[in-house]
């Protein structure tokens, strides 16, 4: 139930009801500061994202923080080995809520070409809650920007991600 429905009708004409959530969602969606952590070749694409040709800063996402305490987004860019898994999980847990994870490239999604290796994590969603998957080997910088914009959409409209929501029903009906 929306909060607007609780307001008695006599007040509806005199009081403007809004949601502070809306404001914070807008702020979170437009100011995603990634943790500067790269694991393999995808990190090179991530770096070029912030440089002149692709310019991640247009969206305000170029503030790569070195410290997990001030970051909002963990971009798992590259092959994650089981040995590196512990530090990555620790970094994720050091980040303050609300925090998001992007799996960038085929390796974090499902192990990529190393899927059968004993040393590689076959998909980081076994360890971390992933919000956006970006396929590619490696994905181009445009793909990463698109992925971050999808993340913004997810933050600003969290109902899009929920299964069985009204939107999905509407789509099914149509």
């Amino acid at each position, binding site marked *: 139930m929306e909060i607007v429905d609780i307001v008695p009708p006599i007040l509806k004409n005199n009081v403007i009801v809004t949601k502070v959530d809306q404001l914070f969602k807008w702020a979170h969606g*437009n*100011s995603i500061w990634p943790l500067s952590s790269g694991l393999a070749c995808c990190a090179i694409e991530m770096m070029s994202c912030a440089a002149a040709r692709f*310019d991640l*800063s*247009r969206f*305000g996402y170029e503030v790569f923080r070195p410290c997990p*305490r001030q970051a909002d987004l963990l971009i798992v860019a590259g092959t994650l080995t089981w040995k590196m898994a512990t530090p990555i999980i620790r970094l994720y847990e050091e980040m*303050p*809520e609300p925090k998001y994870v992007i799996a960038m490239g085929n390796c974090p999604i499902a192990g990529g070409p190393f899927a059968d290796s004993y040393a590689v994590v076959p998909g980081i969603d076994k360890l971390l809650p992933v919000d956006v998957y970006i396929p590619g080997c490696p994905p181009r910088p445009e793909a990463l920007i698109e992925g971050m914009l999808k993340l913004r959409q997810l933050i600003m409209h969290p109902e899009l991600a929920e299964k069985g929501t009204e939107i999905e029903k509407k789509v099914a009906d149509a």
Partner: protein
Amino acid sequence: MENLTVGAAAEWIRSVILLILGNELLTDVVMKFVGLGACIGVILTAAIVLTYAERKVCAFMQVRLGPNRVGGRFGLLQPIADMLKLMSKEDIIPDGCDRIVWALSPMLLFVPSALIYGLFPFDEGVVFADVNVGVFLLLAISSQSVLPFLMGGYASNSKYAFIGGMRTVAQMLSYEAPMVFSLLGVVMITGSMRMTDIVAAQAENVWFVLLQPIAFIIFIISATAETNRTPFDLVEDESEIVAGPFAEYSGMRWALFFLAEYANLLSISILTTTFFLGGWHGPFLPGVFWFWMKVLFMVFVFMWFRWTFPRTRIDQMLSFSWKVLLPLALVNMMFTGIGVYVWRSMM
């Protein structure tokens, strides 16, 4: 000269308050609070405007566009979004930290950065406290900002934060000395430590940047180091010690460090303008316009440094201060003394 901008506004506010209260003494007390509010307003506005400016200047230096999506073509709402996000982030208090010292550190850091704004002459007669030991008080207050860094670094219970805190002390103490000696030349020429006297002396003769070019360069370099900006940002050295003393701070607590950093950036620009670039003086336009034009130019210069110079190493930085800047400042002071003596005996 009649002050037609800020001074007139202050007079108008004073007359309104006097009309309401009807008591001269009470009005003066209220006017002090108005002045305090104006100083705080300048700092908070500066923090928001300068974060945006920093990103745009950085983009300009690197042939990028910078923020241009959030809030219209120019991305004007970007700092607002960042601020709201930092406010609503989780507040993490690390395990095993010294709770009280840890919580006090960001607040205490903001105090000296805000306090020195009371001494700045923004325009003719627009100064909160025009004390006769202005320069001395200013340097005394600004050197207090060393301690909160050490407190934060020590209390975080993290090795990187502790190293960062120790580095801050080493860096800020060693650059304090050349900065003070470079300012002494200006004080010797003026013969006064009052900030308004220093500005007035430059209006009568020439800007001190022409009389004291070496002191100007020494001051700019050590001021960059005092505010912990690149090429001397060894305090929050990302590639070595994660984020230095701020490593364990999240959300709003970290934002306070950020606020103090930009308040410091603005205050060193104001100091450079006041000591070397003639303060509010300039032809045609009112003083407050000249003042802010010079200050914003200096802010641009400091941002220019940040995005063009690579970071130095800690040993290079310390030996540069003690072996180059300090002797140079002392020699400059000696020659200034001789020059002032000769000038006075000729007069």
